[in-house]
């Protein structure tokens, strides 16, 4: 968890990715520096001494205006491909959660994590990790997408659940990227506009 998870590309010049550590992020291209101090986000412009209060909402708006996660994923000629390294774990089972003998619900039990990769293009998502369950799925076949502060969960056909804990990339970038690719895939297939991504992908006409 770090500021670069929120601010994965430069809100000033659009350079992608931002560099950073902990509560500080900086742009290797234009020199903008953002840091969290006393609960505020402070932005320093290159060559200036002044620090400006900025809101996280404004940072995110600027990142979207620069193209969000799509620009870095787009190759010459317009093809889209993006990859990240992740610790990949698969759901083993579901465990009943009881209190004083009363069932309150269920929680997933995840298996051991293995190092792997996640790759996306316009049509599919590919997960590789040396596990027999790894593979490739069409965006149209995914059941749900949900991100936590450090990982992304994909619900796959056949009641499979895979969790990807990113080693050097932003879960927010991946959440935004996956949602956009799924939305585009549904629209291209004429299956309506996606209005919800969890607990299942829901569309409206």
């Amino acid at each position, binding site marked *: 968890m770090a500021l670069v998870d929120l601010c994965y590309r430069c809100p000033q010049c659009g350079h992608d990715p931002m560099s950073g550590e902990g509560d500080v992020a900086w742009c290797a291209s234009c020199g903008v520096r953002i840091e969290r101090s006393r609960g505020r986000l402070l932005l320093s412009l290159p060559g200036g001494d002044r620090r400006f209060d900025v809101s996280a909402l404004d940072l995110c708006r*600027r990142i979207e205006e620069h193209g969000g996660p799509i620009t870095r994923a787009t190759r010459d000629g317009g093809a889209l491909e993006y990859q990240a390294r992740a610790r990949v774990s698969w759901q083993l089972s579901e465990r009943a959660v009881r209190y004083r003998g009363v069932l309150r619900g*269920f929680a997933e039990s995840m298996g051991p994590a293995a190092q792997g990769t996640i790759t996306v293009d316009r049509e599919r998502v590919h997960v590789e990790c040396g596990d027999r369950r790894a593979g490739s799925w069409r965006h149209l076949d995914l059941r749900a997408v949900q991100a936590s502060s450090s990982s992304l969960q994909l619900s796959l056909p056949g009641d499979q659940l895979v969790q990807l804990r990113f080693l050097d990339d932003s879960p*927010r970038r991946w959440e935004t990227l996956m949602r956009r690719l799924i939305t585009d895939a549904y629209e291209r297939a004429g299956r309506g506009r996606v209005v919800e991504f969890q607990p299942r992908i829901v569309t409206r006409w």
Partner: protein
Amino acid sequence: MVSGWYAFFRVALGWIGKVLTQCRVSGTSHIPREGPFILVANHESILDPLLIQTNCRRTVHFFAKSTQFGANALFRWFLPRVAAIPARRYRVDPQSVRTALRALERGDGVGIYLEGERSWEGALRPFRRGSIRLILKAGVPVVPCHVSGTYDAWPRWTRSRWRSPVHVRYGEPLHFGVHDTRAERESALEPAARRLRQALLALAVEPPHRPWPTGA
């Protein structure tokens, strides 16, 4: 009904909340003295449930993502004792709805983060349709609650906390009536979502608008 562990943690975590934040609370008179109710809140930080539950005199069963119930042995033990309801985010979860409805039948409160997750950027995100369906099915008073300041104290993208001012505001209860059939709930979904959003935004403090810095 307040269980022993819940009462203990309300006091103990209340102190921790005071250490971690400078918390002010207003509008607690809007929380029903008795009978079932649903409390809906914005969600900007992991501190939100702590501050709401410790500042509410009634027991509130909050939905929590099921992943946390498997995170470690401490969480597995702790979360049911503070009345957390595990909600699976990767599939539709009828059991979590049943548990919530049972709590309401007992006369307790149920807490729902309508956004379903903490906001990355500190702004209100789109609401989950399933949560609104539960509100329409339950037909109990809905108390809006806005927590401001916890994003500055501890946003989801950092491990570091900062002791900053926090304000928990409760609003007047909303009444949606009982919608027994699925068709009734579906037709009432969008208007209810708009009303709930307005109620939460009315309790929020609009941050001052700052133009993007140009260096001039």
